């Protein structure tokens, strides 16, 4: 187990480094010459050289990459050009919206997936199963942002049940209420996908010999499904749920823009539109880093639940 842990954490660390390199290349190496942008096209060669030195551009980019990673790890994420403020508190306040949003969506998705998947797996091939599967196929295909638009229009604008958008800030009375619709538009497609996973893995388990033994003992069907089967089907389901969390963070990036939520996704889009490269670099690094870390945690959890996964 220790060996597996070390190997996985080491691998994730390497992946994080490659992720940082991707971000750095996209933001620092490709976009051209920031010194030229700072001093303008008519500047004298001396001013231009001074700006290059000031921005640290006279050193080769691998050196800049190492110092960028060092500064990032040390907590110095630079200043945002658009907001004229340090990047770190901006990104962290975005995270304080995006993470609860993704968490809420995951909860809703599981709430949808477990009962639906179980119902469908109860009689694979039956009409109830076919109906559920068809419904789930439909749900998986729904674009999150379209669902968001429809939900805002119907629930918020027409029926005035929930806030249509924006976020009042944590501690304000409608904070959670303003996350409900965005979370729902994320949860329906993902939940439908999860439900199909629940169905598939539960159907697999229900075909096992020990389920037949449980039936032969005369146990009630509910107990067979809930206790004997669901527990064994849970390992792949939890893995998928963990990876779904990573997908939800990504999906939140679009949905935040539908609802005008000040999360990481909104920040990233604003940074791209305003060419705020320091903000973009940190926000992108945090999103991608989050995905790597969530995958690592899921992987380790998998090994903890299922000893067979530890060797390899």
């Amino acid at each position, binding site marked *: 187990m220790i060996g597996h842990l070390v190997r996985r954490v080491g*691998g994730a660390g390497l*992946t994080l480094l490659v992720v940082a390199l991707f971000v750095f290349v996209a*933001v620092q190496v490709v976009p051209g010459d920031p010194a030229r942008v700072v001093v303008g096209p008519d500047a004298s060669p001396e001013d231009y050289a001074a700006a290059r030195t000031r921005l640290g551009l006279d050193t080769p980019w691998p050196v800049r990459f190492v110092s960028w990673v060092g500064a990032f790890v040390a907590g110095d994420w630079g200043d945002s050009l658009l907001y004229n403020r340090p990047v770190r508190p901006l990104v962290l306040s975005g995270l304080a919206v995006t993470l609860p949003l993704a968490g809420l969506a995951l909860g809703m998705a599981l709430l949808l997936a477990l009962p639906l998947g179980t119902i469908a797996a109860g009689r694979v091939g039956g009409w109830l199963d076919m109906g559920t599967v068809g419904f789930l196929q439909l749900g998986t295909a729904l674009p999150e942002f379209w669902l968001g638009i429809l939900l805002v229009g119907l629930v918020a604008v027409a029926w005035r049940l929930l806030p249509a958008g924006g976020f009042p800030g944590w501690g304000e009375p409608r904070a959670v209420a303003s996350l409900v619709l965005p979370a729902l538009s994320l949860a329906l497609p993902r939940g439908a996908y999860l439900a199909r996973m629940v169905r598939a893995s539960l159907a697999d388990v229900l075909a096992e010999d020990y*389920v037949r033994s449980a039936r032969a003992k005369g146990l009630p069907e509910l107990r067979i499904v809930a206790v004997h089967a669901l527990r064994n089907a849970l390992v792949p389901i939890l893995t998928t749920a963990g990876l779904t969390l990573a997908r939800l963070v990504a999906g939140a990036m679009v949905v935040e823009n539908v609802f005008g939520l000040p999360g990481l996704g909104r920040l990233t889009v604003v940074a791209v539109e305003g060419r705020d490269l320091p903000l973009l670099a940190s926000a992108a690094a945090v999103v991608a880093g989050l995905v790597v870390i969530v995958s690592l945690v899921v992987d380790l959890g998998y090994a903890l639940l299922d000893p067979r996964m530890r060797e390899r």
Partner: protein
Amino acid sequence: MRRHVGLWTGVICLTLAASPVLVGLVWVPWDPLSLGPERLAAPSVSHPMGTDWFGRDTWSRLAIGGRASFAVALLSVAAGGIAGTALGGFAGYVGGTWDEITMRLVDALLAFPALLLALLLGAAWGPGLAGVATALALFNLPFFARVARAGFRSIREREFVLAARASGARGGWIMVRHIAPNIASPLLVQATVGLGAALLAESSLSYLRLGVQPPYPAWGRMLREAQDFFPHYPWPAVFPGLALALAVLGLNLIGDALRDSLDPVLRRVIRLRPS
């Protein structure tokens, strides 16, 4: 039998969704850019899907916008598929250090949601289609790389590969001629599913104003423009979303049907019934 139902439902959904694009290859009823006097009109005989706030015909805009969406999706799946298959296949065949390095890169690429890649490239290259297409190709690459790697790894141990090697065939020839045809079906499934994902991602990006630039239409951008008028004027927000959802649904159904018919292990799971 069941899988044929899925397959044909998928084909019908996809054809329905793409009908403005398909018809648009020979005939587009209105100029998708020209402003008209009827704003936010409901569907009628002259405007089968109504008009948007500028009086532009929704059917015609779906036709022209869909052309770009499908082209970008196809292109990115082709590019990502070829590059990913080559990388992953080679890694799986030779194994060792090269395999380690490739898979580490692929894992890192997997950590980037398509959206984030496109946003990064949008910042680097400007908001045009090139960044979106590249991002979607990079997004598709790791999935193909994993499928190809797994396939090559398992097949390189088979006896017919050994026979080919014994008869003096070179590595490259064995990979292309003897192994690759055997993993064509999982790659085909991946391509179908990847196409739906790419279509969805492209529309999300055009919703975020990346990709096709105004006044040219894109499905996601049409939804963004229609958002403010929903639900009072629902039509401009209904049809592009419906087209997108149907197209993705169709591609997913086709992918699932292909997977079921090509993968005997999964077919067993589908068939089983608790007695």
